[in-house]
């Protein structure tokens, strides 16, 4: 299930800059994992040639460190179980992947904006108010009514 903390968490396992954190912690296997490949293709439009080479239509051949901050954060969400990551590093185009990752694990993230999780029903717990919501209408209202951002 996906759990979202809105605002500024004070917990010690919160990672504000997942881009930098990824560069210094990622494993080669993360890059070649089938789900990672799909996310890299969908978000960055890039193909994984190998664990140390990404073929980007915009940037040419680049190392994993040059992937977008969004897709790096997605991989951290998928492979790292010890931290809460700042999902404001992810744009709306990462939202379906966040929901998908959270289908297979309990995932807690931080957001500072109203990410669009789409029109399909979902289960998201707003950590600040311990409330589970099922639609964007419910999510946006709950966040704004409680002035969480």
């Amino acid at each position, binding site marked *: 299930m996906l759990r979202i903390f809105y605002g*500024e968490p004070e917990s010690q396992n919160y990672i*504000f*800059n997942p*881009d*930098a954190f990824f560069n210094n912690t990622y494993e080669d296997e993360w890059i070649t994992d089938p789900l990672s490949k799909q996310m890299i293709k969908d*978000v*960055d*439009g890039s193909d994984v040639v190998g664990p140390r080479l990404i073929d*980007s*239509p*915009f*940037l*040419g051949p680049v190392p994993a460190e040059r992937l*977008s*901050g*969004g*897709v790096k954060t997605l991989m951290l969400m998928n492979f790292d179980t010890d931290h809460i990551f700042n999902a*404001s*590093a*992810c*744009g*709306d*185009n*990462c939202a379906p992947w966040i929901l998908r990752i959270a289908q297979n694990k309990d995932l807690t993230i931080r957001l*500072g*904006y*109203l990410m*669009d999780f789409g029109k399909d029903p979902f289960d998201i717990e707003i950590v600040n108010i311990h409330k589970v919501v099922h*639609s*964007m*209408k419910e*999510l*946006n*209202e709950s966040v*704004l*009514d409680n002035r969480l*951002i």
Partner: protein
Amino acid sequence: MTGKYNIEVYNNRVHYFLTVKRNITILQGNSATGKTELLRLISDHETNGVSSGITLLCDKRCTVLTPVDWELRLSGLESSIVFIDKTAGFIKSKRFAELVKGSDNYFVIVTRDDLSQLPYSIEEIYGLKNVSDNQKYKSYRRIYNEMYKLYDFNISKEFEPDTVLTEDSHSGYEFFKLLYGEKCISAKGKSNVYQCIRDNSDKQILAIVDGAAFGAEIGKIYRYLDSNQVKCIIYAPESFEFLLLSAGFIDVPDDVTDETWKYADSKLYMSWEEFYTDYLIKNTYGTIYQYNKTRLAAPYKTEGIISKVISVMPDELLLK
């Protein structure tokens, strides 16, 4: 700092154009649209100059401010365009807002989070858009990016508001109450606009806000309106004072309102809203139109002035 500046930066793979004309510009958008790459190019160019292989064309110095000793570095910058990435936690700090106020620099900030302590314009929130042709895309050549504005609201010609909501609680509210009568209510500040819309969400709403300083609020409200299908139009002229200056009852050179970047010095004005208010007060001082932001003077309530202001508002917003 005043002025409007075109920035063009490119290497052999990516090519960016953007124009900045106010002290604060915000870059948002999906992941992988090239925001971080833009800042990387500017940073590399600054570090290595011509040796970087990057071309940067701009009449002002462009620099990237990182979290390391940011206050110290910022204190040494002037007449520059300062780019800041979302990974710089200080952009949400009170100290940063204090240093932006009175700064001789323009700031271009990459962030999806709202920066509620900064009065930025809804007009200066941009998303990067790719505009490359297919051949170049396929051959991994340069991608041309242009900036596009978010939040362009379409105004329906059939729209008839049940409630007119103003961000302003003083002169602006008084004026619009004359125009819309009892339908008009004040939100008493921009941070209350959401709640007022929410309280009236079963009605057709016209919300009038000062666009020049509403940037931190517009994203939240836009998302709320979208997810809740609320029949609400946000009308966001620069400010109420901008409407008065545009109405032409005092002699104002066209470019004060049309090319405000020539006049609104970032050292003196945190937002163009402040500039328009100051300009109106100074240029009506000692005349029958002497302007007071807290109370609307009698001459502004006359039919002649009201009709002049109406003439610069979109027809669709006027009651039928």
